[in-house]
């Protein structure tokens, strides 16, 4: 999940989620960033409404537990 955390950190800090920034954050945390995963992350987040995802996580049930008998 570290790539995702890095992305959310950048988002929260109001920074662009681009390869350079993600790598900088990961390396500051002492993680060797895998190039392909960084690329994949940046590509996956392109056009995604992060605020929307955040607000869903915050508002929505934390998780779903429904095991009806």
């Amino acid at each position: 999940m570290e790539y995702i955390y890095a992305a959310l950190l950048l988002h929260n800090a109001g920074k662009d989620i681009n390869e350079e920034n993600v790598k900088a954050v990961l390396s500051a945390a002492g993680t060797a960033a895998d190039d392909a995963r960084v690329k994949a992350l940046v590509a996956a987040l392109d056009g995604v409404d992060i605020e929307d995802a955040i607000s869903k996580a915050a508002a929505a049930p934390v998780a779903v537990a429904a095991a009806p008998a």
Partner: protein
Amino acid sequence: MALYTHHLPAWKRTEVEEIKRHFEEYPVVGLVDMYGIPATQLQQIRENLRGVAYIKMARKTLTRRALDEIGGEVAGMSAHISGQSALIFTSENPFKLYKLLEQTKTKMAAKPGETAPEDIIVAKGPTSFKPGPIVGELQQAGIPAMIEAGKVKIKDTKTVVKRGEVINAKMADVLAKLSIKPMDVGLILKAAYQNGTVFAPETLAIDETVFLGQITLAAQQAFNLSVNAAYPTAQTTGAILAKAVREARSLGIEAGVYEKDIIDAIIGKAYRSSLALKELVE
């Protein structure tokens, strides 16, 4: 083979040759039993299968002869010839053929002496009959009938014939009057052949709901794997972000990291803890 004479009449020879030719033309051949299918229904079935499968009716002896002459695995199909046999030729695979034939089955009234393919249930409620001898007939067949508001009514829902039991004449008559059609009528697949393999009908009867359930399961697994391994895909990016956010919120709330975004939830947690304790105290 020794049972056969060498010299078949010309028309029989033509029939056998035609069957053999179809075996070469179509990749899949089914052996079906058409017993008890009324002509009109058979017409309908042929219509429904047009363009998908071709039905060839022939005398049993000629069918058997053709199968034997082809030989190999095909000859083994002879053992499944029963009732009123026909061959069905198609390009669809044997499982699909089975499915198609199941779909062409229709319900019909039972004839005396037939075996119930499933429990036959008469539902309670009003019938369209006016009071008359019908009440006695129903009662004699073991169906709880009564008269209410000038109509014949069935008092209770009742299973009148159990699956596997024979339907007697009286029952068949009553069921027909009640418009209950318990019999499945259609082409019954006895065996199917494709590319060196003869498939038994038990093998061909696949349960689609099982496959659908597996698809749902596989989709869940893929979703879980994508999210848990944080490998984003178009369908899961939102869920992965949400998971990370939830984790961060959860950590903050559990550990009491007083951040604006979660202070509400921290207050809420403290308050609920207080409520829980209060219940114990008071």
